[in-house]
């Protein structure tokens, strides 16, 4: 997929009658049932629902970590059912993903964690430092660039993970409970960064089980319950 094709994609996410069933031996566990929705370019949507509602499963389908049992998933104009290995990698280079667990590499500094992403995706060497520090400034962590993950607070670690997710200026940011482990102030800091990223033009799908947070954001809210999309409002 060319960058031009991503820019041209008006609908960033489109799900049509998506079902996902996990099979554990003879037992079938439905995780998503008949989920359909779409997300336009530049939108900020909140995906909410209690733990086990299917939020993480849905996000995994969006970054092609898993495939649906039924239905269609289109992301950035790509039909994910037919995507081969190289095109999956190309798609992921246009996405940013953050998790509840920051997933920072423990043996590398904050700067190295971010530069690592640029290096393994083939960014020219001379651009790496500048781009990594741009991302660190965006999340307010440039002063902690040489710190190791173990030396960071949970909020700082999550902001570092966000810097890693946005350093390639993704078209779409998928956030899976990034504030789930954080107290009020830290969660607010992370949310502010995500809002800044959205205002910069990135489409955001933000998953959280915290209903008050979803309400406070005042954005379009998709509510999952028992694997079904029960509400799409805002």
């Amino acid at each position, binding site marked *: 997929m060319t960058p031009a094709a991503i820019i041209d994609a008006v609908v960033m996410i489109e799900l049509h009658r998506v079902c996902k069933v996990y099979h554990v031996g003879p037992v079938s566990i439905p995780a998503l049932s008949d989920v359909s929705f779409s997300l336009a370019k530049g939108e900020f949507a909140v995906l909410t629902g209690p733990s086990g509602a299917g939020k993480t499963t849905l996000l995994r389908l969006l*970054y*092609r*970590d898993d495939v649906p049992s039924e239905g269609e998933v289109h992301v950035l104009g790509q039909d994910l059912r037919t995507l*081969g*290995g*190289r095109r*999956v*990698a*190309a*798609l*992921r*280079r*246009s*996405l940013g*993903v953050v998790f509840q667990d920051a*997933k920072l*590499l*423990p043996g590398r500094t904050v700067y190295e964690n971010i530069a*690592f*992403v640029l*290096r*393994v*995706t*083939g960014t020219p060497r001379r651009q790496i430092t500048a781009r990594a520090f741009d991302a660190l400034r965006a999340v307010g962590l440039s002063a902690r660039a040489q710190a190791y993950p173990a030396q960071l607070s949970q909020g700082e670690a999550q902001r570092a993970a966000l810097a*890693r997710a946005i350093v*390639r200026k993704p078209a779409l940011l998928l956030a899976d409970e990034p504030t789930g482990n954080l107290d009020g102030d830290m969660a607010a800091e992370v949310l502010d960064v995500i809002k800044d990223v959205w205002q910069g033009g990135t489409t955001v799908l933000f998953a959280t089980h915290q209903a008050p947070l979803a309400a406070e954001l005042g954005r379009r809210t998709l509510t999952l319950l028992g694997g079904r999309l029960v509400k799409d409002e805002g």
Partner: protein
Amino acid sequence: MFGFLLGEALRDLRRAGRVAVSAVVLITLSLAALGGFWMLSANLGRAVSQWRDRVRIIVYLKRDPADVEGVLRRVREWPEVASAAFVGRAEALSSLKRVLGKDAGIVDQLAANPLQSSIEVRPSAAGATPEGARALIERLATLPETEEVSGGIEWVERLAQWQRLLAMVGLGVGSLLALAAILTVTTSTTLVLHARRHETEIMRLVGAPEVAIRLPLLLQGMIQGLLGALIAMGLLAAAYRAAAPWFAPLLERLVGLPEVAFLAAPAVVALIAAGAVLGALGGLLALRPAGHGGAR
């Protein structure tokens, strides 16, 4: 990007620690064994070809033939003969005196020359095999002028058999150790795979190309192999320097080889390349199960 991936491979090697060291040691041992036997076998091979060139079959004649040139012409026409030369009785006596050296005076005490004239036959390549030489001897014996035929190349063939045996033993020992080395590299790469799982997860998540994910693992295997090969070559060269002066006189006495040669440059290059291939194979074996998963 290659420089970065090479750096990652070196980082992985440090993570593998003692297992990587074991793999390097095993590769060193396997290539040193292979190289050592190769060197011995190559030297024996030189001795064999040298002796094959020197093989002569002597046809002792009943009496000096009237038409020496006619006999020689007939013999030279045979395909198993490279050359044939007549040695008269007087010439044979002179040769004997040369061989006896300071004891040559004994010959002068003889009442008459007891030696027979002969034809010295140098076999061609076809006649230098055990079967070819046997057939040539039988054919020479049928000449009406022949009194007796002496010579043969059995002992040269025995030397050649020893050379082949050495090469086979070297290959066998080297192969067994190489197999152990591959399995050790596989183990160290599997450990690295485990230690590297967070990096691999992030790399897949951000869309790193598959080659960027796998190359460091392959490279660390190759580095182990190259390191083992270079140490093996260093050890062999040191052993050669230390042992060649002791072995040279023995080999000269046993098989007439004036000097012991070290491995030829192409053999050294081949062994170093073999080290890299062994390491890469070990790395590939560890990566194989991950390959079934495809892009995640």
